[in-house]
């Protein structure tokens, strides 16, 4: 019988794979920007079809209609779980097992379905609310379950206008909302959603950061606090297709998925093509801090106070100042299933660029 060390070496050394066994035999860095990001965007966009949210306001309580009021609407501050819907094909009840939920703060709304979210801001109207600033976020999820396609489409319809099976996030919905006890009914685009209150909203504060770039002005790490001069401040941007980007000396991108306190980074990647080779302590610490907040699976807490965003992860904190809004862009979801996305993430998102999902 061989000794223990020999047996360990034998086991660890057995069954070595070779180049022919590799599934990713080439360096991903150059191909990532051409293949992986579009795929991720496509996935997120496709998921969003099923995952959409809607929100509307309830201007009534106990069945009594109210005029638009300056007071907080009855649905604000709570999360509401989908329980049933009515669309052109009829009604579906007993949807409690479907992972679909809509949450409201006093200004923002987010709908989640599996791991995807559709979110925006709202303002009260006579019978509900009108949405603006629609965005999508999330990681991935099952989108092909036929039973959910109808539900997902209905769910999205209370966030954006629809044209048949096409959803157009560039045309946010105007939603009628009614609260009766712990029940919420939302109506838009011929769709009625019935929801049940589940608890406090837990809406991610990062929704208010989306659509802007934010410049690092200070950081805190294990070495202490550090002010970052404007000319050295890297920028972090959150766009409405669910991509978070950091543009410092290194460039990083990832998807963000909303959490109650902030967000989680998914599928992130960092390019060192323009890496820093100097020893400036500010830059070195800033790069390290950015790497920490952009790392895959990093869970960030976020707070926003006016134009100041603070991101925290473990012992690292970044303070950022809000910059100019990103250029608006247009994206259209045309169904669920396979998907294609343009432009690639290397191409700035500008007016007229589109994100499309083909059935």
């Amino acid at each position, binding site marked *: *019988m061989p*000794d*223990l*060390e020999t*047996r*360990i*070496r*034998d*086991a*660890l*050394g*057995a*069954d*070595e*794979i*070779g*180049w022919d*066994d*590799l*599934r*990713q*035999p080439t*360096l*991903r*860095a150059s191909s*990532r920007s051409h293949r992986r990001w579009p795929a991720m965007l496509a996935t997120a966009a496709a998921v969003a079809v099923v995952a959409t949210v809607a929100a509307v306001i309830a201007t009534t309580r106990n069945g009594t209609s109210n005029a638009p009021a300056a007071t907080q609407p009855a649905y604000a501050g709570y999360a509401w779980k989908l329980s049933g819907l009515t669309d052109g094909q009829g009604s579906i009840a007993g949807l409690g097992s479907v992972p679909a939920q809509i949450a409201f703060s006093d200004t923002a709304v987010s709908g989640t379905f599996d791991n995807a979210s559709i979110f925006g801001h709202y303002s009260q109207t006579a019978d509900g609310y009108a949405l603006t600033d629609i965005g999508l976020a999330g990681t991935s999820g099952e989108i092909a379950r036929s039973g959910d396609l109808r539900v997902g489409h209905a769910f999205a319809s209370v966030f954006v206008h629809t044209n048949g099976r096409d959803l157009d996030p560039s045309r946010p919905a105007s939603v009628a909302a009614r609260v009766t006890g712990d029940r919420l009914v939302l109506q838009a685009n011929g769709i009625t959603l019935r929801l049940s209150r589940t608890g406090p909203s837990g809406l991610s504060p990062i929704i208010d950061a989306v659509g802007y770039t934010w410049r690092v002005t200070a950081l805190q790490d294990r070495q202490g606090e*550090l*002010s970052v*001069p404007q*000319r*050295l401040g890297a920028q972090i941007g959150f766009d409405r297709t669910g991509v978070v980007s950091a543009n410092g*000396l*290194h460039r990083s991108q990832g998807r963000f998925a909303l959490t109650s306190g902030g967000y989680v980074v998914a599928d992130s*990647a*960092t*390019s*060192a*093509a*323009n*890496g*820093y*080779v*100097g020893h*400036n*302590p*500010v*830059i070195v610490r800033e790069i390290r801090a950015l*790497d920490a907040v952009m*790392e*895959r*699976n990093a869970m960030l807490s976020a707070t926003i106070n006016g134009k100041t965003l603070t991101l925290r992860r473990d012992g690292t904190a970044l303070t950022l100042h809000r910059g100019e809004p990103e250029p608006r862009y247009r994206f259209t979801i045309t169904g669920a299933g396979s998907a294609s996305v343009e432009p690639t993430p290397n191409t700035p998102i500008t007016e007229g660029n589109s994100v499309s999902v083909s059935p």
Partner: protein
Amino acid sequence: VTAHLQEGTPLVPTIDVPALFEKHYLSLVRLAMRLVDDQESAEDLVQDVFAALPADVEDPHRYLRTAVVNRARSALRHRRVVRAFWARGHRLEQMDSADLPSLRRAERDQMLAAIAHLPQRQREVVVLRYYEDLGVAEIAAVLNISPGSVSSALNRAMSALAAVIGADDA
């Protein structure tokens, strides 16, 4: 604290990443497979390591190996893994079982499962010692711990493996 960027600071990589990839990728994937539980995750994390490789690293191979170990640890921290299934999972499907006596194969499976069940630090030490053939000092450098901690972890791991495999191997 203020600092200034000097104009002309070189921002181009000073290392040949494609050449490093060609030279080290396969061996790093093999190492990662000993630390995580499937080839796909191993390749993913090694690709991530190359993507994040700083341009000014002095010892790229050492840096890459350390980064793979760290990322493997992070990967395991973020997902639930039934490590015991690794040896019996798709890894076995790739084996040419007809060439291996069943007893020897069973012993390897048992050992791999036992290693996979070790606490992560002990698992790393065992893999670096008996797969990478690193000395205690080198392992300490990779894991950024003291040589004494390496020896301690290695002793505990060997005791645990001996207990699992059989008292006659201790």
